[in-house]
């Protein structure tokens, strides 16, 4: 186990308390910005039900009390509700979904399971934009119906959007749509260089000044009652230094946005807490990053921002996060270097 003063966390944590569980890489949609290269058919080597339940027991026994379940589309697994029920009995559990399969009965069951919050991805404020981004006609209407069902059953809902060129002009309208649908939080996420999004980068990515302008316009006219969450450094405190994640195949990956870049161990054979002390994991948590602001760690509990993006653009784990206005230093975010993953 790492100890204070050693490399291994800023601020130091003996064991992580929160974890992202990437339950599956299957999904009924075909999103242009998909980070997990999801498909409609399950991959043969995804973890089975019994292994997920065993891992959740292991996580709970080692202090995880906050679990964010995402995919793929978690609800595309037949055993999703059994796995969620196992988690909610042990830890605060939230769910990320496209919501297209959530009808009234599903919403009632999710409420009954004790899901703490559901995060719904919308990729545009209009059917033309959203449905084109997710590749399935009728998806926006289905997602809005899913949100309405969740709200009828009292489940708190956040709407998430991955900010990219096809939807940037619709950001204020999407915030209004989220508020009208009953969401109390609107999360604007940056585009990450993963999966299909990586391959479609030049068509999707915005320059940093375009992103900042969109965020400023949104913040200036945010609907009443809607809380804004955004993932640009220095507001990405939920990051390498405290996060843990498991991919659909049972590999510890630290953060879902590192899924293409790291493997801290196979949890079918390696104790989960052992992966927390993987040398690279400890190094990324330490926040040893070139060019970060001196007061960043004290105010934001993180130094140097996202390691996934830094590595994708600069090829170094100690490189600055180019999505930070202070550390960007002229990096054109519309041009992703051709680097092997």
């Amino acid at each position: 186990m790492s100890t204070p003063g050693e490399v291994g966390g800023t601020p130091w944590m003996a064991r992580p308390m929160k974890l992202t569980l990437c339950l599956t890489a299957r999904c009924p949609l075909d999103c242009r910005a998909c980070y997990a290269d999801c498909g409609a058919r399950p991959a043969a080597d995804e973890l089975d039900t019994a292994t997920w339940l065993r891992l959740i027991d292991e996580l709970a026994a080692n202090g995880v009390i906050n679990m964010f379940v995402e995919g793929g589309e978690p609800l595309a697994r037949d055993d999703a509700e059994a796995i969620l029920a196992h988690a909610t009995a042990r830890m605060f559990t939230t769910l990320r979904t496209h919501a297209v399969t959530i009808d009234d009965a599903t919403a009632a069951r999710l409420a009954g399971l004790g899901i703490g919050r559901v995060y719904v991805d919308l990729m545009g404020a209009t059917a033309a934009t959203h449905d084109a981004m997710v590749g399935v006609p009728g998806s926006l209407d289905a997602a809005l119906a899913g949100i309405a069902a969740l709200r009828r059953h009292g489940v708190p809902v956040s709407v998430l959007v991955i900010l990219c060129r096809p939807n940037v002009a619709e950001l204020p309208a999407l915030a209004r749509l989220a508020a009208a649908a009953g969401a109390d939080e609107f999360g604007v996420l940056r585009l990450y260089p993963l999966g299909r999004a990586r391959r479609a980068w030049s068509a999707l990515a915005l320059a940093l000044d375009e992103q900042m302008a969109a965020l400023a316009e949104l913040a200036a006219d945010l609907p009443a009652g809607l809380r804004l969450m955004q993932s640009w450094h220095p507001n990405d405190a939920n990051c390498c230094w405290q996060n843990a994640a498991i991919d659909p195949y049972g590999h510890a990956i630290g953060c879902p946005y590192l899924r293409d870049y790291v493997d801290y161990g196979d949890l079918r054979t390696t104790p989960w807490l052992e992966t927390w002390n993987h040398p690279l994991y400890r190094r990324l948590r330490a926040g040893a990053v070139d060019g970060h602001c001196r007061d960043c760690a004290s105010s934001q509990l993180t130094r140097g921002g996202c390691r996934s993006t830094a590595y994708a653009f600069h090829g170094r784990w100690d490189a600055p996060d180019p999505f930070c206005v202070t550390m960007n230093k002229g990096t054109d975010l519309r041009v992703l270097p051709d680097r092997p993953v």
Partner: protein
Amino acid sequence: MFCPTDRFERAAGVVLRPMPEWGRAYAYTPRRPALTELNTTTWLIATLCDGATLAELEEEFADAVRRVAGDNAARDTLHRGLAMLVEAGIIARTEDAAP
């Protein structure tokens, strides 16, 4: 308002996650899904609630904080902390049925 004979214990299903390295703890309440951050004071109070009566808690808490608080301040702090923990569903209060 609590009575001296009221008993306090961890509510059913509640998970307490100490974070000693941060000087705080987190409580998960599955019956009303929420994660609540506890400071060192409420964390201590939650730990003392093992079925003890209010009178016993007042004595134990006063002992624990004697170096930094007198009896009256300790009692006020305990009652405020207990009220918050009961309101959040982290601690359950049972009225003593004994005469």
